[in-house]
């Protein structure tokens, strides 16, 4: 039997080259495509939809009921506090509708946040003169965050106990989390357990791993996102 050797068309190579071309075009123009997809309303399981991604730095989902929840305000204060969920609800409430921008690129637009101004909580605890910064601690046992006293006293920095007009779910850091509106998401500690007033900023979990301590949206981490607040 004689075999006719046909060299054939190098379609495999063309497929690979085409994919490299498409991939490169996607890197250059993907952000525009993503905006279009978000406007069209991409299903939540596909890339590019307007939804939260759930990040946790520990190996489980921290959970605590509102009834068992306690928030400690400690450190350089004259009046250390232990606040229950009901105590927080009894304080003057702040409600705002603002975007949540992650430093990894995704953004969820128009989220309704309800809570107590951090400034009010700090006032209730009577911060000592030498208290210039805050350390936030999570009941996941791992995560910490920081703010300067000046940042902490902004009106758009709240201890949030409601989100989208319902309780803050465990995935989103409930029952109580921080929402630092003008900064990237990593500044908004989830599963908030303790607010400690300290002398100077102690960089938080992701900050010792390379993120900027002053995490302003659009003005840090080499990103130019539209400001959130």
């Amino acid at each position, binding site marked *: *039997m004689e*075999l006719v050797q*046909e*060299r*054939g*068309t*190098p*379609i*495999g*190579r063309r*497929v*690979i*080259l*085409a*994919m*490299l071309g*498409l*991939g*490169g075009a*996607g*890197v*250059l*123009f*993907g*952000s525009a*495509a*993503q905006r279009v997809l978000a406007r069209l309303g991409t299903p939540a*399981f*596909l*890339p*590019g939809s307007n*939804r*939260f*991604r*759930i*990040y*946790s*730095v*520990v*190996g*489980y*989902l921290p959970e605590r009921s509102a009834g068992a929840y306690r928030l400690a305000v400690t450190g350089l204060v004259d009046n250390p506090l232990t606040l229950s969920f009901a105590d927080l609800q009894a304080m003057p409430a702040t409600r705002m509708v603002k975007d949540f921008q992650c430093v*990894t*690129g*995704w953004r969820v637009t128009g989220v309704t946040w309800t809570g107590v101004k951090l400034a009010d909580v700090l006032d209730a605890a009577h911060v000592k003169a030498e208290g210039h910064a805050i350390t936030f601690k999570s009941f996941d046992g791992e995560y910490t965050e920081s703010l300067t006293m000046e940042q902490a006293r902004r009106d758009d920095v709240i201890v949030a106990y409601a989100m989208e007009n319902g309780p803050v779910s*465990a*995935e989103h850091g409930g029952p109580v989390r921080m929402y630092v509106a003008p900064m990237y998401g990593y500044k908004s500690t989830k599963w908030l357990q303790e607010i400690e007033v300290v002398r100077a900023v102690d960089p938080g979990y992701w900050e010792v*791993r390379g993120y900027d301590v002053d995490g302003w949206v659009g003005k840090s981490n*080499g*990103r*130019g*996102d539209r400001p959130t607040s």
Partner: protein
Amino acid sequence: MAAVTGPHPDPVAPSGAAQRQGAARRLVRFDPTERVVHWSNATLFLILIATGASLYVPSLSALVGRRELVRNVHVYAGLALPLPVLLGAAGRRWGSALRGDLARINRWSSDDVRWFRSLSRDPMAELGKFNPGQKLNAAFTGGAILVMLGTGSILHWYKPFPLGWRTGATFVHDWVAVLLFCTISGHILFAFSDREALGAMVGGRVSARWAARHAPRWRAEVEAAAEAGRA
């Protein structure tokens, strides 16, 4: 040439028996290098899918957590992904079968094109060692590895890149991941629907009957080579 094994062909046997014997013979489809490369790739892909999914799917992220560890495993598995093929093809001796198959996968014969255009229904199309679907899948997977490596590197070493590129790289990385998940699932489903093809990736061999049905040109090639070896 040890490509053909099994019962010794008996030169004086009548042709009918020879053909029956021929059908029972086992042909080497994948040599040990190719199988090691394949299963190394499979392991890395499974690790990448598992870690990638737990970084990306919210309910899994919440369940698995350990974000930094999961991310590091994902990054190193991703960087390792091109190595099996490169190392496997690098050896002068151990890489020759793999290099030969990569060349086969690259080139489409006119029969391949016919088979593909008829959506695998053209009975006249005589296929070689790989069908065009397999060729396309292999080329797609190869291209996807490169694209994922490039976009993943932009995501991991993001500092020098403009924001738009980083968003674009995320976009491409996510979409290609979804496509790869589909093609790999399909690949596994096809493998389980043809146990003999799957067996070739485990034990290395297929029956001549299988080869005649799925890869007639390849079977003829192997037999011609064996004939030449005997002569």
